[in-house]
């Protein structure tokens, strides 16, 4: 397999791992899968870096490894383990089976959309590009279909990984500062979400987004 094929294949794995993140029963379990997924992302960066001969992607990979494989999952796993909501159950609005089918549909649609792009940078990596877009929307779907607010945080992380991958695929040559800015923002976002979720759990004793409906109209 050529370098770009490896990139494409690894991108496919991203969807699989994100499915695991979404389908996992416990948020702390999801955190582990998220670390796995980020590891795949790092691998994509490295593979892409070697395939397109773009050394700055190694820097990205390193940054992503520190933040996404280590930092964020550790924060999540440690804080989410302490939160619980007995009444919530699995907190899924749709069953895992439908989730998987949804993922398939999303990938299909994104493939169709991406097939129209004529950008030269996208030539060899259209599948991966489609996956990155699909990954983004899959994250969105996770936020919409999960009642557990902790799962929603994961949804955000998945979206963020998706756009990150697009950035790397299409614009691997961006200044490093850009990448660092984006990553830092994402880490802060997760930290604040975690803090807020903890406060909500402490104050309202729930993790169920459907319980957060006092404000209406």
């Amino acid at each position, binding site marked *: *397999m050529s370098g770009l*094929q490896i990139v*494409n*294949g690894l*991108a*496919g*794995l991203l*969807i*699989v791992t994100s*499915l695991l993140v979404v389908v996992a029963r416990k948020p702390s379990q999801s955190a582990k899968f998220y670390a796995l997924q980020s590891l795949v992302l790092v691998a994509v960066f490295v593979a892409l870096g070697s395939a397109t001969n773009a050394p700055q992607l190694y820097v990205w990979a390193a940054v992503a490894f520190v933040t996404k494989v280590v930092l964020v999952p550790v924060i999540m796993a440690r804080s989410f383990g302490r939160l619980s909501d007995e009444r919530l159950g699995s907190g899924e609005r749709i*069953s*895992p*089976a*439908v*989730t*998987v*089918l949804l*993922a*398939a*549909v999303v*990938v*299909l649609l*994104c*493939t169709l959309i991406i097939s129209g792009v004529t950008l030269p940078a996208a030539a060899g990596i*259209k*599948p*991966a590009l*489609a*996956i990155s877009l699909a990954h983004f929307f899959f994250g969105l779907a996770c936020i919409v279909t999960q009642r557990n607010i902790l799962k929603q945080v994961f949804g955000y992380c998945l979206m963020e990984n998706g756009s990150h991958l697009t950035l790397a695929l299409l614009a691997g040559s961006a200044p490093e500062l850009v990448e660092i800015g984006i990553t830092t923002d994402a880490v802060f976002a997760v930290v604040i979400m975690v803090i807020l979720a903890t406060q909500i759990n402490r104050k309202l004793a729930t993790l169920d987004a459907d319980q957060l409906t006092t404000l209406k109209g």
Partner: protein
Amino acid sequence: MPTLTQVSLAFVQALLLLAAAPLFTGITRVLRAKMHTRRGPGVLQDYRDVIKLLRRQNLQPPAAGFAFRAMPTVMIAALLTIAMAVPVLTRAVPIPGLGDLITVIYLFAIVRFFFSLSGLDSGSSFAGIGGSRELTLGVLVEPTLVLSLLVCALLAGSTDIGAMGEAIATGHVRSAGAVLLAGAAAIFACYFELGKLPYDMAEAEQELQEGPLSEYSGPSLALLKVAMGFKQLLILAFVFAIFVPYGSSSDTSLVGLLIGLAAFIAKIAVVAVVLGVVENSVARARFRLTPRHSWFGLGIASLAFVFYISGL
């Protein structure tokens, strides 16, 4: 035309598998007993059962018809055909043309069809329910199996089981992600077919899915008992041939065949252990839950298909 070697290999392989079927079920029983820390019957118990049954009288319910009577024979025959079609000891299909993916899947479908038909034909309501359940299960599992194997076939560029195994084993397929997903889905579907916990307990005859067996007796029952184990073995062989053909011989030399046999036995052993562990760590799922799980499998298979389309 297949050569004589090929034909004889096919026959030998089929008979070998048929003969080994009670052994296989016996071993899994023993394993299970060990895990329950109890002393079960010995490894050869299933042979003893079969022999005992063969000596009994063949009874059938008054309402039973042709399908009921023909089923054991048809089942064994179909399974034997599969056994000749699936590559077990070799990489290549023993009889070229017979080992086509679609043929094999349909042969399995025929087995299922007659099995459930006999339940309906027996006139017993218990057996009837069992038969209809068997059909439901088929409806649920079959699409996943077909879709995932179709993806594999598309990726390998051939519907020949041997060629598929070859392509996948050597990595000559375009999309690793799709293969992994399709493999996962296919194996998942096959697990249903094995009739193991949490979806079924093939050896406990009072379980509803085995309902069609309840009206059989004597030699027919003996045949069916052998056929059940035979089917499990064949499913495993089928999966191995496509996804883990490692170890099987690429030619028909004796040494190669022996190595292939050893590899096959090793794979079976590993699977038996894994199955044993799985069966002992889960409880029987309600039949109602089965569709959910099978839908999940279908989802995985469709994802694999989409991956194939997007060219990952």
